[in-house]
């Protein structure tokens, strides 16, 4: 039953240390010299994947990031947390929209063949909340977004979702896409030796 879990993480603005400011040309937010790190909800997704591994549900956790060269930092953080391997789709300086990110992820999914794809419900700078959903659509997989609770029984994934109308529980068949909501879990603190190890790991 052990699944391969793919976690998509974005290297985004660290909201808890900076105030988001709009660029003067109104075409985006200021990213120059702004502290970036793993997007808040993506980190919860990594944490959830690691917990699945600790429960014996997942056999392998692979982190993937579609982003510029610096996205490597986010991947190393995921590795330090406990992910088994990481994939970096280097987009250079190009800023991608959710649809393009979803398309890139679809290719990775085809290569990696995971049973479960986890990601955050939205990134802290774009706030789109589209990538997970689009990916599921393109793969024709079931999806559960804004997850507050995730359980895997036999070959089905049971997710409690937070919606504006209240909590909704969905049961889906593997393979599936789940996006992490605020109350899913609390990300673990990374131990120093793991940070140093992750720093040294090559592709």
């Amino acid at each position, binding site marked *: 039953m052990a699944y391969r879990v793919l976690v998509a993480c974005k290297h985004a603005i660290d909201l*808890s*240390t900076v105030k988001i400011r709009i660029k003067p040309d109104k075409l985006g937010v200021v990213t120059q010299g702004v502290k970036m790190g*793993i997007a808040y909800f993506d980190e919860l997704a990594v944490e959830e994947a690691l917990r699945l591994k600790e429960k014996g549900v997942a056999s392998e956790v692979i982190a993937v990031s579609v982003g510029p060269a610096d996205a490597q930092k986010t991947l190393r953080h995921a590795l330090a947390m406990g992910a088994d391997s990481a994939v970096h789709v280097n987009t250079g300086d190009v800023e991608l929209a959710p649809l393009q990110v979803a398309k890139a992820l679809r290719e990775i999914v085809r290569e990696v063949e995971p049973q479960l794809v986890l990601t955050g419900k939205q990134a802290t700078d774009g706030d789109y909340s589209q990538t997970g959903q689009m990916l599921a659509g393109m793969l024709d997989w079931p999806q559960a977004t804004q997850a507050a609770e995730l359980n895997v029984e036999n070959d089905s994934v049971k997710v409690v979702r937070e919606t504006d109308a209240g909590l909704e529980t969905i049961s889906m068949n593997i393979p599936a896409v789940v996006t992490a909501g605020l109350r899913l879990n609390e990300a673990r*603190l990374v131990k*120093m030796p793991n940070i*140093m190890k992750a720093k040294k790991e090559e592709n």
Partner: protein
Amino acid sequence: IKPKRMLLRIIKRNQTNSNNYLSARLVSRKRPRGNFAEINTTDISYFTQILGTKNIKTNTLQKYTKDWMGRYQGDSTCVLFPTTVDQVQQLLKYCNDKRIAVCPQGGNTGLVGGSVPVYDEIIISMEKMNSIRKFDEASGVVISDAGVVLQDLDQYLSDYGYTVPIDLGAKGSCQIGGNVATNAGGLRLLRYGSLHGTVLGLEVVLPDGRVINGLKTLRKDNTGYDLKQLFIGSEGSLGIITGVSLLCPPVPKSIKVALFGLSSFKDAVLIQQKAKLQLQEILSACEFFDNSSMKLVCEHFNVKEPIEDSSIYVLIETRGSNDDHDTSKLNSFLENMYEECDIIDGTVAESGSQMKAIWFLRESIASAISESGATYKYDFSLPTPEMYSIVDAVRKELSNYPDPNVYGYGHIGDGNIHLNIMAKEYSEDLQNKLEPFVYEYTSNFNGSISAEHGIGQMKADHIHYSKSEIELEIMKNIKQIFDRNGIMNPYKVI
């Protein structure tokens, strides 16, 4: 007329009650009431005339007459809220002429009973003098009223990309004027220095009503004796600070927090030494706390211990302008520490929320202790390698005692330990076991019996443990020069 008399009766009743079951909690007055006038209706009318009825309070005063720890309480019947420097001048001149004792008050967050009256001194609260007057972006200097809450000042500055040079647990309530009057130290003294360096000017109203208009924004001014240094740390005994000119550092672009778990204090001393050598200009905080503190905080606030159980924990923070530079510096430091020290466990916070979680462990210790029992708080400067020995010594002194818990934590980078003893209830017996033992212990190391908390009421007759006779004599002379009638915060400090 009638309401005031009733109030006095009610207060006296409370006092009797205190004597019955709260007597041990409230610290008894050390010095007898001085020869000061008792205020009457004429005085109240005068105050009302100057301030208006909204800015004078004569009932429900406990918030102002009792301190944060609930250990010191005075009998004031009147709290005044001036809103201009002119009003403060008029009030002080009047009180000086009539020999009315005055207790200046900021956020009332002090820990040595310095911010509350001892007897019936009138309280002059700076609460309503809370405007930020000016900020000069070119120099990073802000001019502010004394009554601005520290956190509010920091919020204001953050819009310009600057921050206040001090940080302490009380930031949500303490006022900048009070911080200056007590020369507050805090968590970032290691990086930004003390207020003696960052305060560039003060506006002070003297007891006789004259005002020193010293609000300059100059970084350098060697023209005669630097009088503002006398007021910084004077704890309201020489005059009332009404305005502060403060040099502020820029908000850092990169902040990192690391937490180490160590097996002995010796390792902690080594880590703080190496941190200063290897992290140098980016090191911004170096704190420690012991196992009992960590256990108490986690239990009291129901949080998980982030790293493995260790004897001593050290928190290191870096602040800089370039994240990549700081990351590589910190990573090298970590690698070196793993080679040179016996580290049980460690973690580095990557995100702001994780940093807050680690800081929470250190910043909430004081609250966890106060909320769990009767606390005796001490604040000493000791030679860094010897710092923790006082905790061991106190534990040994109290070994025959039934229940006290001893905690040691503080600013290891500054050689300053906060020693706390917590018992089920306050008792003279326990107090006598602790004092003068802890003061003598500190004095033997040539340390300070009050690193940053100040003297207040608590240590008013203990300065001699850290200062010589001639120093005390000169201090008394200075007090005479500024405050001939002794109306400013009597019974405290000197």
